[in-house]
């Protein structure tokens, strides 16, 4: 790929030239149109993305090229950087656009409608990497797997490229013509029969536009379809306080946390902030340090439960009883009678909560029933936590609507609605059971669909217009705490896309507008300086929502536990952690990213507990038929230790056949089994079929086989023996015939804190994005050919029904006595002076001896041509490639390099400035993405370096140190904080 780095001579011509021309022009877009027709752009496009150029649809070729060009154009504009209209480089990276140097921009990515701040790295106008925005409350500098994939979906060749009229390519002009007709019709009828179907959104501009539309067409109906909607919290707060409020949690203040089926580390728009704050309270380096404690009651295994000090797996329908019991116990009543958990557990929990007082926090899974939410609010209030560890704010996504998809279908049925404009949603895939959206939509007079892909709904629509990717759009968005951010384009739309704002404007009769002015107009409060600052910082200063102070009525306003006897099987629906409701199904990175606990890739399975499997004589991969009131689906079973008994976990997001990547994946679609917006169903039936399938997973063995791999101890045990990691660990033999090799310059080293690691897989995804790691597809994964340089091992320990779960990220250890190097016959992997275990791809001949001899098995081999070398044949996906990392060819070994390209960049910079590399200057991709800062990287030879401090911790140990490989990567043993009263043998000491 260095070709791009080396050959950017071409863009520099263009940009320099364009910069000059743009300077004179008022309106950037017009000037774009002027210039972009010229062959100069096309040449740039061909130089930069030959294959894109040739893969572009024939008809609107010129225009698409123009869009592509816009990339470097907008950058051109911004590097001229003087006009408020241009987008502005991030303030921490004050770099002009110089070929070969990346530029960084702040924006915000949407997660289920909520914003998470991001900083995008852009090379010659190509967004290549997503990093977190440290100034953004929802990111705090961290990212997750889904955010990392944003750049990949941007360059997805399957994206819809042209407007479609009844499935036939049409011009945007024709679309506008038809819309003009619609507008005049609505104007006449005040919007009679018209309806908008939107997704959940927090965009203030969008909200304003919708208000404007409703003002313009009073009879226009607005429906919201969110397959992942969790309305219970709002209902509870509505009932208790008369207004729908959203809780905001402050884990940095929480001493004792009780999670009632809440996966606050892995789910929800605040997950990254939660993870940061939660683990910050649990960072133990010396016996005197303190640690918060987490009790987790959950109805399906989550990474939160895996992190918990005490975990209880239970049927989802039993949570209400626990909530009731908890509230009662805290309320001082001895009413915890029918609580399904054992008394000692409850007692310890309640005692801890009481001691914690206002620093306690009871958090409820958003999918749980309104009663549970209410009970938790009350309990928090009793403890005094309300207003301290949990605040209530006006919901950022508040938008008065006329109902959901069901209501819409009814309305269509009653012919109250004959025209529907679907904005971004894909109801045909995500509609729940018994809701025949297809039939309903087919009866419409006009169905307009606006989306990123030509998805199931688009196929049905009379008109489909491509949406812009969020990295191509001007917009704005609010974070989980209400903080607003501006969304700015990194690249002018690659394909013929329009932002949702433009589309709404069109429906409002403004045909000649652009998203930028629409958004800008919505923020009159910001003067140009403030606007630029907002763009630079990625957040709009103090726009966070103010907490509302409330007091819950004692009687929970009559909310009662739903009287469902938890008879039979429960079904617990979850959204796939990466694909969500299926919208990311076409992102190969996400398909191939192992699920945190099951390590399943390219598919999903029905998760059940070992006991249930035992009862029904089911093995892994056995196809089971799951029936729940009326509907039924087939899915392969997967046995998960610690899964609640008599419960099946089904995940949404799979089973899509639209999209070349999505179609590759196996897995089943759980929506047909779902009723309404329920998150768990009771009284389901499960019958094994006779066939089985192979569920693809990247980790086949779950036990540590009694080896001291993840060394762990309880806080008490740690206080007694701070160096517990040494206990009954085989000693490392240091004597050798050979003299030691000295490293007197930098000595790069990494420390990974296993207590902090929550197994969220963000690091793996970031590594893939940074290092051009090829996805290989389901068949190859099944054969064990996957390529991730960094893997997160997951081990179970203790009883199979309630095991302890451990995560252990395993990158290359960069051993000082590297076993891989001595066996390579061609010097393709050798040591550098700063102690890196370098891998020279162009020297490797693929004997695979190094991997053979690597006890950590962290090396990855290109068994086949996984990605094309050749820029001509590689798809537009190559647009996402990091130009500073070689693309590896077939037959070559590769592995974690400690992000050597980042080290080199920083060293060259330091050398030019004739200084040493500062501590913390070099940040590896995994470290940068990690929400809990579990990974520390730096120069081991600097006494003041953070990594040295980490490695000085008593629980620091090297993996397999008995082999005397002298790894540079070491681990801090996992420390948990179980209550002394409940100490399980497994937890009391290290295992």
């Amino acid at each position, binding site marked *: 790929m260095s070709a791009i780095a080396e050959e950017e001579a071409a863009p520099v011509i263009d940009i320099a030239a364009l910069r000059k021309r743009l300077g004179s022009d008022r309106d950037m877009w017009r000037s774009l149109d002027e210039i972009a027709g010229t062959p100069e752009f096309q040449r740039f496009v061909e130089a930069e993305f030959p294959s894109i150029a040739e893969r572009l649809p024939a008809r609107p070729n010129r225009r698409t090229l123009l869009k592509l060009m816009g990339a470097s154009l907008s950058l051109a504009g911004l590097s001229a950087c003087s006009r408020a209209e241009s987008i502005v480089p991030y303030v921490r990276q004050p770099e002009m656009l110089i070929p070969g140097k990346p530029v960084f921009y702040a924006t915000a990515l949407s997660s289920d409608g909520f914003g998470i701040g991001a900083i995008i790295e852009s090379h010659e106008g190509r967004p290549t990497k997503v990093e977190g925005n440290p100034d953004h409350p929802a990111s705090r500098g961290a990212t997750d797997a889904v955010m990392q994939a944003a750049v990949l979906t941007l360059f997805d060749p399957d994206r819809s490229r042209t407007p479609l009229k009844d499935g036939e390519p049409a011009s945007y002009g024709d679309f506008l013509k038809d819309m003009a007709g619609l507008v005049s019709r609505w104007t006449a009828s005040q919007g009679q029969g018209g309806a908008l179907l939107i997704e959940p959104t927090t965009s203030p501009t969008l909200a304003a536009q919708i208000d404007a539309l409703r003002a313009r067409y009073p009879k226009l109906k607005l429906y919201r379809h969110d397959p992942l909607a969790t309305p219970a919290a709002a209902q509870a707060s509505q009932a208790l306080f008369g207004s729908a409020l959203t809780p905001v949690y402050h884990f940095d203040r929480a001493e004792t946390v009780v999670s009632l089926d809440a996966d606050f580390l892995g789910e929800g728009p605040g997950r990254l902030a939660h993870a940061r704050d939660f683990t910050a309270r649990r960072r133990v380096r010396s016996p005197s340090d303190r640690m918060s404690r987490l009790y987790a009651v959950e109805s399906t295994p989550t990474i939160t439960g895996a992190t918990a000090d005490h975990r209880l797996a239970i049927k989802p329908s039993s949570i209400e009883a626990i909530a009731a019991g908890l509230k009662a116990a805290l309320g001082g009543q001895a009413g915890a009678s029918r609580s399904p958990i054992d008394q000692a557990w409850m007692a310890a929990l309640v005692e801890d909560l009481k001691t914690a007082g206002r620093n306690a926090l009871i958090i409820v899974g958003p999918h749980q029933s309104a009663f549970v939410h209410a009970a938790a609010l009350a309990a928090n209030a009793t403890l005094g936590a309300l207003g301290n560890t949990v605040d209530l704010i006006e919901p950022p996504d508040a938008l008065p609507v006329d109902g959901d998809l069901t209501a819409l279908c009814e309305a269509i049925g009653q012919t109250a609605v004959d025209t529907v404009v679907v904005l971004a949603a894909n109801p045909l895939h995500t509609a729940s059971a018994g809701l025949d959206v297809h039939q309903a939509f087919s009866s419409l007079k006009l169905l307009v669909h606006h989306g990123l892909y030509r998805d199931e709904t688009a196929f049905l629509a009379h008109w489909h217009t491509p949406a812009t990717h969020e990295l191509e759009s001007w917009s704005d968005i609010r974070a989980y705490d209400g903080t607003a951010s501006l969304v700015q384009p990194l690249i002018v739309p690659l394909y013929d896309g329009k932002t949702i704002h433009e589309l709404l404007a069109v429906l409002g009769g403004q045909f000649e507008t652009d998203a930028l002015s629409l958004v800008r107009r919505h923020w009159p409060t910001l003067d140009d300086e403030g606007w630029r600052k907002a763009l630079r910082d990625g957040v709009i200063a103090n726009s966070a929502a103010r907490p509302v102070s409330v007091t819950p009525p004692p009687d929970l306003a009559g909310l009662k536990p739903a009287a469902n006897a938890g008879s039979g099987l429960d079904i617990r629906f979850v959204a796939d952690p990466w694909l969500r409701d299926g919208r990311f199904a076409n992102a190969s990175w996400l398909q191939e990213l192992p699920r945190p606990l099951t390590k399943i890739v390219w598919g999903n399975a029905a998760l059940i507990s070992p006991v249930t499997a035992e009862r029904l004589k089911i093995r892994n991969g056995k196809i089971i038929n799951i029936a729940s009131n009326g509907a039924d689906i087939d899915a392969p079973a997967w046995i998960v230790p610690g899964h609640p008994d008599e419960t099946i976990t089904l995940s949404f997001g799979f089973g899509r056949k639209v999209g070349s990547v999505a179609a590759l994946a196996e897995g089943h679609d759980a929506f047909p089994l779902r009723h309404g917006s329920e998150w768990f169903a009771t009284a389901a039936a499960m019958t094994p079929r006779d066939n089985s399938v192979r569920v693809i997973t990247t980790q086949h063995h779950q036990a540590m086989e009694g080896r001291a791999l993840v060394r762990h101890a309880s806080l008490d045990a740690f206080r007694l023996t701070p160096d517990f990691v040494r206990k009954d660990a085989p000693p490392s033999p240091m004597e050798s015939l050979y003299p030691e*090799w000295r490293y007197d310059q930098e000595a790069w080293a990494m420390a990974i804190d296993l207590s902090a690691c929550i197994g969220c897989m963000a690091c793996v995804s970031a590594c893939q994005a940074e290092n051009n790691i090829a996805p290989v597809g389901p068949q190859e994964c099944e054969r064990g050919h996957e390529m991730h340089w960094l893997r997160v091992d997951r081990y179970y320990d203790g009883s199979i029904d309630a095991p302890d779960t451990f995560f252990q990220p395993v990158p290359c250890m960069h051993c000082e006595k590297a076993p891989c190097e001595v066996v390579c016959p061609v*010097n393709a992997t050798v040591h550098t002076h700063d102690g890196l275990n370098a891998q020279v791809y162009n020297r490797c001949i693929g004997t695979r001896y190094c991997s053979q001899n690597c006890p950590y098995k962290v090396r990855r081999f290109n068994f086949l041509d996984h990605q094309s070398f050749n820029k001509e044949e590689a798809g537009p996906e190559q647009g996402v490639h990091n130009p500073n990392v070689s693309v590896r060819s077939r037959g070559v070994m590769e592995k974690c390099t400690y992000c050597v390209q980042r080290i080199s960049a920083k060293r060259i910079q330091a050398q030019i400035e004739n200084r040493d590399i500062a501590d913390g200057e070099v940040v590896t991709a995994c470290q940068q993405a990690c929400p809990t800062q579990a990974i520390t990287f730096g120069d081991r030879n600097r006494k003041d370096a953070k990594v040295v401090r980490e490695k000085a911790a008593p629980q620091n140990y090297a993996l397999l140190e008995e082999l005397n490989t002298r790894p540079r990567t070491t681990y801090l043993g996992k420390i948990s904080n179980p209550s002394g009263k409940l100490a399980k043998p497994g937890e009391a000491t290290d295992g």
Partner: protein
Amino acid sequence: MSLYGLMAVFADPEALIEATRGMRARGYRRMDAFSPFQVKELDRILEIPKTRLPWAVLAGGIAGAALVYALIWYSVEIDYPINVGGRPLHSWPPFVVIAFEAGILGAALAGFIGVLAANGLPRYHHPVFNAASFSYARGGKFYLLIEAADPKYRKGVTRGQLTRLGAEIVEEVEA
């Protein structure tokens, strides 16, 4: 058409040995014996000097080993010193292995080339092939050649002596 010598054919090794001993006794020196397989006594009778080829083999072995070890040493110490797995540049134990193999190879080549050179092979055209009676192929025949250049060689006499020593055929061999 000069004369190379007299070729006498014998039925079996014993006869050949006898004849050879006899001719030596009669003072002939420039003679050679030919047999389908080695007849050990002949070495002594013909006073064939002990070959020095073993020394050549030894030299070849030492040379091969030394050269290759030197090459390795040069490559790791001087030409491209590089840290491999934290081992010292000149970590001799592994290098010895290759040197050993190279030694064997050198020795074998020296031996093979040496024996061909010493025997003056390949020698496709040789006077003995002029002898009609001389054939390897018939097998079981054993030959004694008295060169005409031998000082004691007398045309009739030598032929007579050979016949008396039990030669089946005695034939003149042209050079």
